């Protein structure tokens, strides 16, 4: 449920932002924007179901120790 709401929110934000980007004539920003939103959604899809287990800082600490 949480993931569905998250993806729906991301999609709504994405549609509005792309419309804003086109209106302001900054078409050059679109690929970077889509890459950033995709990264956020992918991270959400990977991490939200786990709810911090294992955590980001736990993984970092494990790498460096």
């Amino acid at each position, binding site marked *: 449920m949480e993931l569905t709401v998250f993806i729906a929110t991301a999609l709504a934000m994405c549609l509005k932002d792309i419309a*804003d980007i086109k209106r302001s004539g900054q078409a*050059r920003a679109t690929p970077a924007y889509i890459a*950033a939103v995709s990264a956020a959604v992918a*991270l959400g899809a990977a991490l939200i179901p786990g709810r911090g287990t*294992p*955590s*980001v*800082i736990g993984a970092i*600490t494990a790498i*460096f120790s």
Partner: protein
Amino acid sequence: MLNNDKISARQVFVVFVMSTFSPATRLLPSLCANYGGVAGWLGPAAAGAALAALMAAMASMFKGSAAPRDLSDAFEAAFGRLGRRAALSVYLLWTLLLYFIYIRYYAERLMGTTFPNVDIRFFLIPMLVLVFIAARGKIEAFARFAEVTILIFTAVFAVLFICFIPSIKPSNLLPVTPYDAPRVAASSLPAIHVWGFFTLFFFLGEHISNRHEIGKYIKKSVIYLVAIATATLVSIIGSLNYKTVTRMPTPFFSATKLIQVVRSFDRMEAILLSLWVVSDFVTILAFAFIAMNIAKKLFGTPDTRPFASPTVLLGYVGGIAVASNGLELESFSANPAVIAVNISLCTLFPLAVCLIVKLKTKKKSVVSR
């Protein structure tokens, strides 16, 4: 009057000072007491000299007609395009990690102090909605908000410090002898760790209208930061003893609970908590603006605004996934390796960049002569 979404150098200092309040009150008391013992309260004074040197170096780098506009330009001047991209990627990841950590700290603090057993999303979502609205707006409005809140913060802090005075025991702060110098130096590291965030604000360089005047505000801001941090440590270590402080998760909050004026005024922690939320908002938004500006430079886009929604979405995911609980977050922040990485990225590396840029500029001017 400033236009075109520009802020002044003074406003940058104000935002920086406001954004360090939350990490400073959370980290400094326990870490300084841990590293410095009885002499831990002198750590910020020692760190003040390092901060002044860092600020002076940054000010000198952004002075002159051929000076870089921001830290990203300085990376390009020092290491070329590829080096700039690599450095920006590292800084983007580190800034995002700090952003996640401060979002989670904000929620954990509210859960730990007033609302235990509440779902973390209850705190995360309102904060991120505010961050989204502010991040899509003008940075100028954010800077003005910080200008207003710093006055309230200073006034409330002064009142709190005055209320603390009767509970401060000199035996908890003294004796400090010249033999404590190594411990004072060690206790300055947490302050350098927090105040090193100053260099990250130079990713906003394009938004700073009078970059060449940064040097004018160094003395005032260093004195202010050292005074506030020292007063915080004197209040906490002086009233609770350094051994107790090292074992407490939120020593400043716990010490504030002790305040009672003429047996009638107490529960001052409510005021502190509301100030903390405001400071957390400034810290989180400052990191969001910095991350958005780094992303703008990295992807070569004309504006930061398109990155507002991805930053907020990432903030939600990161705020939840960054740690499994508050204890993990605290042990991560107090980890000496993390402090070392942060000091390297926020203090030592920018200093090295500053030196390389200066040398290259000097070499160019000699060749052109």
